[in-house]
């Protein structure tokens, strides 16, 4: 297999005395969709923030394309090709949809016209084509999530970090966006996604890491994770796996 795109080695992050992420290691191979799941408060978003440069790790190393990028500021990581979306959407509220995406497009294009062209292209790709001129603050939640995605895509990333892009969407909206994410992988963009919508995770992810209480407790293919006892216990409480097993036996 080719060299992994992203390597996280023994990364920790403390907030005062609280250890949010504890000695986490994971590797993300190029051209795959990797999912990061885990109960609330497991440290998933903190880990994302460290990979994208918004938080500095208390310890450990992060490598991107073989280079040590630990503690680099977000803008430099974005130039290297790491883009992220925010769990709580962060639109440029006063700007139009097209202008929002154009800000991302400017990363690789100085000229306004080129950036605008790319922005409109990406906007159509994520099905925002009809509302490119609308102010961003008039969008629905589904629209704003798409806008987050479009903006990140306009930076032409190699690695895309998606922080709960499906949260708050209804089932039909989820059905629309899932093939979009799969399409990104097919175009060669490596995706790491934090997601709670299991149906989507199971159908999209090539590999899953499970984070609980700041540690990686399991990793593997979706089918393996679904039956992993430690994972079930992390979500449902100690002894849950045994009780479930007993229920099946009865």
């Amino acid at each position: 297999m080719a060299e992994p795109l992203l390597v996280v080695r023994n990364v920790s992050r403390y907030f005062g005395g609280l250890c949010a992420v504890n000695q986490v290691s994971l590797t993300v191979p190029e051209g795959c969709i990797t999912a990061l799941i885990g109960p609330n408060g497991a440290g998933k978003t903190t880990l994302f923030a460290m990979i994208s440069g918004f938080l500095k790790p208390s310890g450990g190393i992060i490598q991107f394309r073989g280079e040590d990028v630990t503690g680099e500021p977000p803008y430099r990581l974005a130039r290297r090709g790491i883009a992220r979306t925010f769990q709580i959407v962060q639109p440029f509220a006063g700007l139009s949809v097209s202008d929002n995406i154009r800000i991302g497009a400017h990363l690789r294009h100085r000229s306004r016209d080129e950036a605008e062209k790319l922005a409109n292209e990406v906007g159509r790709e994520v099905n925002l084509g009809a509302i490119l001129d609308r102010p961003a603050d008039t969008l629905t939640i589904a629209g704003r999530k798409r806008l987050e995605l479009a903006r990140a895509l306009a930076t032409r990333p190699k690695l895309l970090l998606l922080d709960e892009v499906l949260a708050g969407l209804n089932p039909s909206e989820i059905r629309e966006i899932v093939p979009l994410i799969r399409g990104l992988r097919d175009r060669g963009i490596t995706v790491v996604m934090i997601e709670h919508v299991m149906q989507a995770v199971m159908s999209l992810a090539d590999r899953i890491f499970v984070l609980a209480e700041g540690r990686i407790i399991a990793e593997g293919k979706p089918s393996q994770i679904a039956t992993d006892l430690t994972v079930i216990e992390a979500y449902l409480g100690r002894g849950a796996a045994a009780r479930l097993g007993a229920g099946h036996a009865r």
Partner: protein
Amino acid sequence: MKVFAPIVVVVILLAAIPVVVHSNVVLNFLVVALMVALAGQGWNILGGYGGQYSFGHAAFFGTGAYVTAVLQARYGINAWTAFMLGILGGAVVGAVIGTLSFRSGLRGSYFALVTLAFAEVLRIVASVAPITGAGVGTLVRLDLRLAALQFESRAAFYWVILTLVAVALIVTRIVERSRFGAWLIAIRENEDAAMALGVDTTAIKLGAMVMSAAITAAAGCFYTQYFLFVDSGIAYGTWISIEALLTPIIGGIGTLFGPLLGALAVRTLGELAQSITGDAPGLDLVVFGCVLVLVVWFLPRGLAGAVAGIAQRLRQTERVSTAREAGHG
């Protein structure tokens, strides 16, 4: 070139005023209004487009004014050179204050307070330092020659300040259309999101600060040439910090013509207030305060925003009526 057309039209119209109007009172009023507009144009780059509200643009205005005055009065340097060095001096002060405050991550009201503090420190230093003439101030020798950048006619001064305003308008327009400007606006709208999209927010804010400081400093340089006198209360006084931020806010924050519209409105009101109350000191500030409250309440996008809103509504009704006519036909 189409993007500069409105600027050309406005500047030509303004340039024609002294041809028609010969009253020194009116011209003097307009010169001061344009000077305040220029200071506001500087503030607008950083505050209007970048969302970084400075309460201390006097620091740049004053530096421009003092550098221009002191270089001429004490070192006999040519007025034009002194003027340019004054702008440069303002830019340097902007770079220093910007580096210190943006590097330490100051945002919002903390940034505003720090800029205010810097301006006040400069005012106090200027009021005691020998080089600035301390409490006495600095006088520039009267020398009504083009080489000394002094003119007998108010109209000539008017055209000089109008040229500076025009340059600032063009610079603002270029910023608006550039990648730098797009990133600056992104920072205003959402700094974290901008960072995630690869914007080096510290560098962009610093660039805006330097540009902003240079433009406001130019207003200070002009002040010296026009009045031939500065002291610490004029140069670094809070009056100019207030007017520099009031004019864009009232005129239309983050808009090309906002500071110009705002300056004319604010100055007109100020003059009216003074003529009605008979020069009671500080009363113009009371009027400004009331106007600010009214504008923020009723016209959050300022006068320029209101004009744009009316234009849009007219266009919509026109579209509706043409659509209706088409429907009848």
